[in-house]
């Protein structure tokens, strides 16, 4: 199986550049040899005097298409290893029409004009200059044309899926159309110019026959077309051998091997069974109202992508309210080679009815053993609260806690199974005394060099793995406990922001306050069950320098530089350049914190609200916060967004470190 540079994600390396360059040379030779270094010849197709463009283009298209299909049928390559352009109807229709007009006017297209320049044609050079201007014009008018650019977006769409035909059949028909076109245009040429070089020639007959045979052979090699109608045969080929997969699938359905009973699921979840991924495929709002503890939410269209990492690894269980959607999704995934996808029998409704319905409400007699089980499950899935009879009431159980947690609340709730406490102090401090059940983690472990920028928060995929190791699930309420620096907690808060995990809070005063108040501590390591925290990049608050630069230019955001004043003014500097982002205002992060005798706390919300009211026009104003590396600014972000309710706050994580080093970015010194 060939791994392409695209599938290895190394299209941006010098190796890829070299290969592209060589392919470009061959491309140029092919175009030139075909006679495409002449605009007269190229435009001939539009006046029926020289149909070479059609002959060359369709032959090339059919050759590459057939070649690629044979390569797939022989298991040389998977279609997923090739970059596939999305179908965007409106953009491609309008773009195609305009392009065609430009083509006939100039007599060139970009590739042929490149060859035209090499052949000494001035009109090719003029055309390229025009095309460069046209590209710049597109960039300058992008904001106007943007709706058109994405209008009719279908994602990746194959012709055979559009027509619900098999791939082999469409390729065959396509080849037939091509052969017909070749004969047709030869006839046209004969009519218009009086001569046709290939019409009726032995060459064209042989050529047509060879194409026909190859296309026909494809239908046999990629299976009987009538059987694979409406499937996606491209994906079918990725399955392990021992085909007749439809039969296998039906066999499994018959034997109900593809189901898991709610009772079995409950047992597995309660016992912390590893390698089980429970997926809720309902819409997000339903999921957030209520879902089975431990389930992740993936919508149907995203399933195959999101589950790639779990393909034939462990067990994936899908559920919805009923059975239809998960069953269809399971079938589709099965055809894509997933052999480990199961359905929850009777769906969520069945689960609630069979596992969570209190014994007192059941009409049938329940044996004592099972009663105990039900109570166990209810304890686990409903958090040990009082009897709830239906799903609507279950939803009330979701935690509603403030972003800033006081020690009192935590001392009452820290033993609850879905409260997870992270202690952000140093390891020795944690080892000698910590809140019972808390885990030690250094805030720095969530940061690193990303694309050359130091000290930025790691990508969501890595963060979610780290969070998995901390046995945190998407349903947990995470409490962040700092030592001396509140911004340690808010930095880790950004981890959860990036993962879209809204249920987290910072314990005001940190461990030192807890300790001073004499609340319980111990030195034990908690027992850990692994959890699966699916990678979800839900970060819509981190911004990069381009977005900041845009705001600097448009003056559409309040940029708050939270570094100490000397750094803001450029009197002190640890970076490539000193000063600040033009237009930024200085509000050091230390201003938001009050020092008590032994510990630091956030200043009272009313006081903070008053301060920021002066700086920021209103609650919906766009605000960008930054510091040197994003650490201190995370605290201002937390204050604005989570404590004061500003809705439009962004975090420039890379901060002054990056801004100062990118010399093309503007700066200001002093005020």
């Amino acid at each position, binding site marked *: 199986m060939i791994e392409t*540079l*695209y599938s290895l994600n190394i299209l941006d390396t010098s190796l*890829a550049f070299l290969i592209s*360059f*060589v392919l470009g040379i061959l*491309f*140029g030779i092919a175009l030139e040899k075909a*006679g495409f270094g*002449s605009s007269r010849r190229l435009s001939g197709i*539009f*006046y029926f005097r020289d149909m*070479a463009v059609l002959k*060359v*283009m369709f032959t*090339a*298209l059919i*050759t*590459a*298409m057939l*070649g*690629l299909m044979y*390569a797939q049928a022989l298991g*040389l390559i998977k279609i997923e290893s090739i970059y596939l352009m999305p179908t*965007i109807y409106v*953009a*491609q229709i309008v773009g195609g*029409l305009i*392009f*065609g007009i*430009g083509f*006939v*006017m*100039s*007599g060139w*297209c*970009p*590739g042929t004009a490149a*060859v*035209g*320049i090499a052949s*000494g044609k*001035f*009109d090719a050079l003029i*055309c390229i200059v*025009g095309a460069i*201007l*046209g*590209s*710049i014009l*597109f*960039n300058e008018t992008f904001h106007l044309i*943007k709706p*058109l650019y994405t209008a009719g977006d279908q994602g990746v*769409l*194959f*012709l055979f899926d559009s027509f619900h035909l098999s791939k082999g059949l469409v390729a065959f028909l396509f080849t037939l159309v091509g052969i017909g076109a070749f004969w047709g245009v030869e006839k046209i040429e004969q009519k218009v110019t009086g001569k046709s070089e290939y019409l009726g020639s032995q060459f064209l007959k042989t050529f047509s026959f060879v194409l026909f045979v190859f296309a026909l052979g494809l239908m046999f090699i990629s299976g009987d077309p009538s059987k694979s109608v409406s499937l996606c045969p491209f994906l079918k080929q990725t399955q392990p051998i021992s085909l007749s997969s439809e039969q296998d699938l039906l066999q499994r359905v018959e034997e109900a091997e593809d189901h898991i009973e709610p009772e079995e699921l409950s047992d597995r979840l309660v016992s912390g069974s590893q390698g089980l991924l429970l997926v809720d495929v309902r819409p997000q709002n339903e999921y957030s109202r209520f879902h089975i503890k431990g389930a992740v939410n993936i919508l149907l269209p995203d399933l195959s992508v999101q589950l790639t990492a779990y393909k034939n690894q462990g067990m994936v269980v899908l559920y919805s309210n009923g059975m239809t959607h998960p069953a269809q999704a399971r079938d589709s995934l099965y055809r894509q080679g997933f052999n480990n996808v199961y359905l929850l029998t009777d769906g969520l409704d069945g689960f609630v009815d069979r596992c969570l319905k209190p014994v007192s409400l059941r009409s049938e007699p329940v044996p004592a053993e099972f009663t105990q089980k039900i109570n166990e499950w209810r304890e686990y899935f409903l958090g040990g609260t009082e009897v709830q009879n239906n799903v609507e009431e279950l939803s009330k159980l979701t935690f509603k806690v403030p972003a800033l947690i006081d020690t009192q609340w935590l001392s009452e709730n820290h033993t609850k199974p879905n409260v997870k406490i992270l202690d952000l102090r140093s390891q020795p401090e944690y080892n000698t005394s910590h809140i019972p059940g808390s885990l030690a983690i250094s805030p720095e472990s969530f940061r690193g060099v990303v694309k050359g920028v130091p000290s930025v928060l790691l990508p969501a995929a890595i963060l979610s793995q780290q969070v998995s190791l901390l046995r945190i699930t998407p349903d947990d309420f995470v409490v962040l406990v700092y030592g001396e620096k509140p911004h340690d907690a808010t930095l880790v808060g950004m981890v959860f922001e990036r993962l879209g995990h809204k249920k987290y809070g910072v314990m005001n005063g940190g461990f030192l306050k807890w300790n001073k108040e004499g609340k319980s501590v111990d030195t034990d390591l908690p027992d850990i069950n692994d959890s699966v925290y699916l990678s979800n990049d839900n970060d819509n608050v981190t911004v990069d320098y*381009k977005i900041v*630069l845009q705001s600097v230019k448009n003056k559409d955001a309040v940029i708050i530089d939270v570094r100490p004043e000397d750094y803001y003014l450029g009197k002190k500097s640890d970076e490539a350049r000193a000063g600040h982002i033009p237009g930024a205002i200085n509000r050091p992060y230390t201003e938001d914190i009050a020092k008590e005798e032994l510990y630091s706390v956030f200043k009272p919300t009313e006081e903070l609200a008053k301060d920021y009211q002066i700086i920021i026009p209103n609650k919906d104003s766009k605000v960008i916060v930054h510091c040197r590396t994003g650490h201190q600014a995370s605290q201002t972000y937390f204050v604005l967004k989570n404590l004061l309710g500003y809705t439009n706050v962004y975090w420039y994580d890379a901060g002054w470190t990056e801004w100062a080093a*990118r010399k*093309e970015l503007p700066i200001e010194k002093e005020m």
Partner: protein
Amino acid sequence: MKNPKPYMNPYIAGVFLGLVLLASFLVLGAGLGASSGMARIAAAFESSIAKSHTLSSEYFGKWGSNPLNYYLVFMFVGTILGGLFSALSSSRISFQLEKGKSASAFLRIFFALSGGILIGYASRLAQGCTSGQALTGGALLLTGSIVFLICLFAGGYLAAYFVRRQWND
């Protein structure tokens, strides 16, 4: 100068081009392209005039401060060199403004320039040109690419009548 060699049989040239495209699929995992490389050059050009403006623009901005660092730029340069190599070896290089004998040079330059602008604009809108969209996407049997291909010819045939004078002999 020697007489230019005749063009290659278009069907054989097509097979050759198709095999190059197939090689590109199998090795790069992406098809051939020309307009993207050209647009990158446009971005570099705009950037050399107005750096921070280009960087903060929504479309070119996402290509970063070094837009030329992209595989299709290298392919575009290769295409020119490949064309040069082939044109040299076939004695087909001639410095000229290609047009109909009785058409004015001004008319031809005007059409070449404005046609070029339309091509540059449309290939960004459709995310590709004859190479990257019609040929590559067509060979992959992508619906949108074939729609683009059909519309390309439709647009060309609709406009052909109005610009025919540039080829009058």
